[in-house]
């Protein structure tokens, strides 16, 4: 796990050095101009946010079925990162909206869905902090229900209103734009994995410390 952490962290660092340069060199988009370049970070963070949300959901189901502490560690790590990447997505999206639509916020379907996902996972962290005994299970239920809820939120809000640019943009990117975009996606993914691994390593160390405390008490070292 440690090796993977070092590897992903170095790749992420490399990507963070290279991708701004690539993005700068990519051709200006005709209608949006410079503002369009937010897209190179905005879309990858949103993709990683979705990845981590569903990873959290799957880990939560695994925790509910097997009660394995490792599944729980994975769930809490992904939930924390869901809040971080969700905040990045909302922030970059908001900057885009200010320039493109003239407002910081609109009740567009994707914005609203992301905002609600963000609320679900902030709720997840609140439950874990203040829920007392049993909060791990409750948080797992929240993650599971949250994942099931995403499509329903999406459908209900989209009928309510929509104005976000279509996602068909990505497959139709011209090559000079596609390269920096996919480099940015890769960078975000590596950054995400590095953070996830760091969190998992932290959790593993904590479990070890707990076990050592128990062993010390067992050996009569602690009064």
């Amino acid at each position, binding site marked *: 796990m440690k090796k993977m952490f070092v590897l992903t962290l170095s790749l992420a660092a490399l990507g963070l050095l290279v991708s701004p340069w690539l993005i700068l060199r990519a051709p200006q988009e005709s209608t949006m101009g410079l503002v369009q370049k937010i897209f190179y970070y905005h879309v990858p963070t949103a993709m990683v946010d979705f990845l981590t949300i569903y990873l959290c959901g799957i880990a939560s189901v695994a925790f509910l079925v097997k*009660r394995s502490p490792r599944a729980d560690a994975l769930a809490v790590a992904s939930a924390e990162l869901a809040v971080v990447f969700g905040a990045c997505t909302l922030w970059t999206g908001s900057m885009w909206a200010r320039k493109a639509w003239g407002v910081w916020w609109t009740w567009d379907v994707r914005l609203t869905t992301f905002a609600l996902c963000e609320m679900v996972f902030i709720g997840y962290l609140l439950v874990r902090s203040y829920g007392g005994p049993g909060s791990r299970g409750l948080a797992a239920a929240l993650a599971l229900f949250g994942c099931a809820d995403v499509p329903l939120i999406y459908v209900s809000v989209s009928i309510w209103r929509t104005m976000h640019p279509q996602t068909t943009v990505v497959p139709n990117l011209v090559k000079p734009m596609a390269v920096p975009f996919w480099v940015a996606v890769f960078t975000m993914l590596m950054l995400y994995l590095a953070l996830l691994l760091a969190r998992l390593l932290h959790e593993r160390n904590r479990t070890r*410390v*707990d076990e050592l*405390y*128990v062993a010390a*008490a*067992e050996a009569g070292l602690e009064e």
Partner: protein
Amino acid sequence: MFDHVTVEGVTKVYGRQRALGGVSLRLEAGRLCALLGPNGAGKSTLLGILSTLLRPTGGEVRFGSVQHRQAGRTLRGAIGLVAHESFLYGDLTGRENLRFFERLYGGGGRAQTLLSRVGLDEAADRPVRTYSRGMQQRLALARALCGQPRLLLLDEPFTGLDSSGVAALRTLLAELRDGGVILMLVTHDLAAAAELANHVVVLRRGKVAFDHAQSAPFARLDEVYAAHA
């Protein structure tokens, strides 16, 4: 169903706290096991594990041939628990509480017998909210007997009982013991448990410090407790 319960090397860890550190013992039908120990010795945790509501971190519990982790509805129905809390609905009467739990256990028709058995005939149709602590304790015991348990677990059942209540509970427990029920009694009231328990286990810091069963009930428990706790 089952006539013995075996506990083998059971541990329970909460984060950095080790509540149980390898407890092994065997409970048998016709024995009333007094589980003694100072506060924080792990008595309630052990009781929780035996009630199937807590999972052990390690080790094995077997109810006859049924393992703890296979615990299902049939096994749950064969275990009764009297805990610190009353497990009762304050806005229902004593009789309604018993009828409700009886039906939950798939039975019916024994509410009156149980009420008489714990001496609550007169108060049966009053809301439980109006009961004294001792009366609630009696009803809690009647509730635990609703499913005709094979294993009956009692956590400080003498609390709040007056002297006649203690005497009545002792008689009832002796009847159950001689009737072949497996009993485990957690108590600090050593006098009330004397002449009743024919098996004594002392827990200290999550481990068994003393474990002895004999055919006749122990006459005194305070000496055993003083020597091992």
